[in-house]
């Protein structure tokens, strides 16, 4: 539904002619930001591609030592959390603000669970000495260049986890604002933007998971 022409002064900044234009600007801004974020990860994906090309067999060996179960559980957690976040604006639209808040809290819980499991996994790697570069002391895989896989693994999952952490904070702020009724069905843009960010972080994981655990 278009809000073109409505002058809801409460939400509209004065340099926008209409609330609809402001909404469009907010969405486009978020899309542009996500494009930037995607390119940030692309840098790492490119490095991964180069070393995967150079050390194909070695990456394959290293993957045999990954905890596929934990990775799969984490994937499941993120997909479900994304579904919850996607449902929140609908609940808000139906004026069921407390349901929207609960959905966000559910997603936050899953995000935190993801981070805990990720931490457990990192702990295992550290314990085995499967660490990047100069810290590498993994007895089961003593091949030159093997540390590169773990360098990339820690960089990629680390950067992703940082984004998850930011995402959890964003969702928490949104939940508080929903409770305080500063985000309402009238102008739910903040909720939509936060959701876009969360989905983006999930989608990145959907690429990391096969690259690091499966293939």
């Amino acid at each position: 539904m278009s809000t073109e022409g409505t002058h809801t002064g409460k939400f509209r900044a004065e340099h926008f002619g209409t609330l609809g234009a402001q909404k469009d600007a907010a969405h486009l801004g978020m899309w542009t930001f996500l494009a930037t974020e995607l390119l940030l990860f692309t840098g790492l994906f490119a490095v991964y591609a180069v070393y995967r090309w150079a050390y194909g067999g070695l990456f394959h060996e290293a993957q045999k030592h990954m905890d596929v179960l934990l990775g799969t559980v984490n994937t499941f957690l993120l997909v479900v959390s994304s579904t919850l976040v996607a449902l929140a604006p609908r609940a808000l639209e139906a004026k069921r603000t407390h349901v929207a808040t609960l959905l966000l809290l559910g997603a936050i819980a899953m995000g935190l669970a993801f981070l805990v499991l990720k931490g457990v996994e990192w702990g295992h790697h550290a314990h085995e000495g499967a660490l990047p570069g100069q810290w590498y002391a993994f007895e089961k895989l003593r091949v030159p260049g093997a540390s590169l896989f773990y360098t990339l693994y820690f960089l990629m999952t680390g950067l992703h986890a940082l984004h998850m952490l930011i995402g959890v904070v964003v969702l928490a702020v949104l939940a508080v604002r929903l409770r305080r009724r500063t985000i309402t069905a009238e102008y739910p843009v903040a909720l939509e933007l936060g959701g876009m960010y969360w989905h983006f972080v999930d989608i990145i994981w959907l690429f990391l998971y096969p690259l690091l655990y499966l293939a």
Partner: protein
Amino acid sequence: MSPPPAEVPSYLTAEAGLWSWLRTKDHKRIGVLYLVLVLLFFALGGFFALALRLELLTPEPDVLGPMAYNRAFTLHGVIMVWLFLIPSVPTTFGNFLLPIMVGARDVAFPRLNLFSWYLFAAGGVITLWGLFQGGADTGWTFYTPYSTTSGTDVLPILVGVFIIGFSSILTGLNFIVTVHTLRAPGLTWMRMPLFVWALYGTSLIQVLATPILGMVLLLVAVERVAGIGLFDVGRGGDPVLFQHLFWFYSHPAVYIMILPTMGVLSEVICAFSRKNPFSYRMIVLGTVGIAFVGFFSWGHHMFVAGQSVAGSGAFGALSMLVAIFTSIKVFTWIGTLYRGSIVLSAPLVYALGFIFFIFFGGMTGVAVATTSADVHWHDTYFVVGHFHYIMVGSALMGFLAALHYWFPKMFGRMYPSGPAIGSAVLIIFGFIVTFLPHFLLGNMGMPRRYATYPAEFQALHVASTAGASLLAYGFLGIAGYLVWALVKGPLAGDNPWRSHGYEWASHSPPPAANFLTPPEFEREPHDYTVVEAPRVY
């Protein structure tokens, strides 16, 4: 033309006090804030350029020792590239004019705009602190494995440049959204002023290329701190991979510097030849073309780094495509000047200088994009000459043209024309004397980044240093009359150039709200088929 109503204050006087500037969300004030920082950084980078030239006056290291020389050229390069050239036009004139040119009241996200200024300032301070307290000897390119092993203090500079990159992304994002969502009614894409097109193309590069730079700087930083071995041959890493990632940003970064100044050229040349652009569409095509092709030519920096012959050939050919789009623009500008009613003025002199320099810089660019020739010229003064013709010759001339063209718009006062034209001629002449010898030196085999050289190169080095001193006098001249004009210059009036650019449809200096009534741009931008200048809204 209606005189500005006395009761409406300009953006300069709308609020008073330093604090009102530091917390402003007005895009015009933010543009001025950027201008202050950028000029400060430029002066600093220029000072170290002079120090380098002074050292190179004689073959022996007498002013600066080798290490001090390395630190000085790193300082010069880092400041000029990251702190001056990349932000120079978009953040200053772009911020000031983009919303006015599209008939908006502000950029889409004013608070973000102010935030990106603070990021830029913070990044600048951190970078400068790194450069001065420890100083790095890597050059502005931070090549691995030297940058990961150098004993000098590279880390704060990496962090500072990373933050500046983030600020650059936010500015680009703001401009993209502004152009998409805040154009005045009736202002279609093909009626946007050419400066807006240039800023739009630049913003796309800023948003899409800068994150790769951020990532690669981060990787070098992590490598220095934690030894992760990503670019370390001893651990299976590949140092050349750094170069690929670095130039994936830093080649397009040349277009972040040059595209906005090309937009300035289109504006200035139309205004001072009093003619419509020879072909609006062709300039737009050239802008978009350069922005696009620029992403696929980075490999021309690695012709001698063990890149495959096929790869080098492809990168060389793609780099030459840039020259085609650039020459489309150059011919369009010359076509615009042809049979125009030329008004000789400082902005136009700089614009003509720009055309001359981009012609030279572009031609030598094609030369170094030729793989076989580049093997001879790689890492010599020939390359130094080439990129200074583009980055100083062209980009800096564009910046100065913009400064002189829009100074009365921004501050409402006029500088004296005679000294301005005199300084412009001095700077153009000084530039040629400084950098023309570089091509000859490079061709004779003088490698870049050395404090010392064999005695047979001295004559050309002396010429180059003499030229640099002319440049310095030129810039001192500009500083002198602009400061005078700021304080005592005669009031310029709303449209001293009688320009038909959209930005002159507001008062000079503009009121805080840009326009007193909503503007209507009924005519094409740069339309000189009608005699009278645009109405002031």
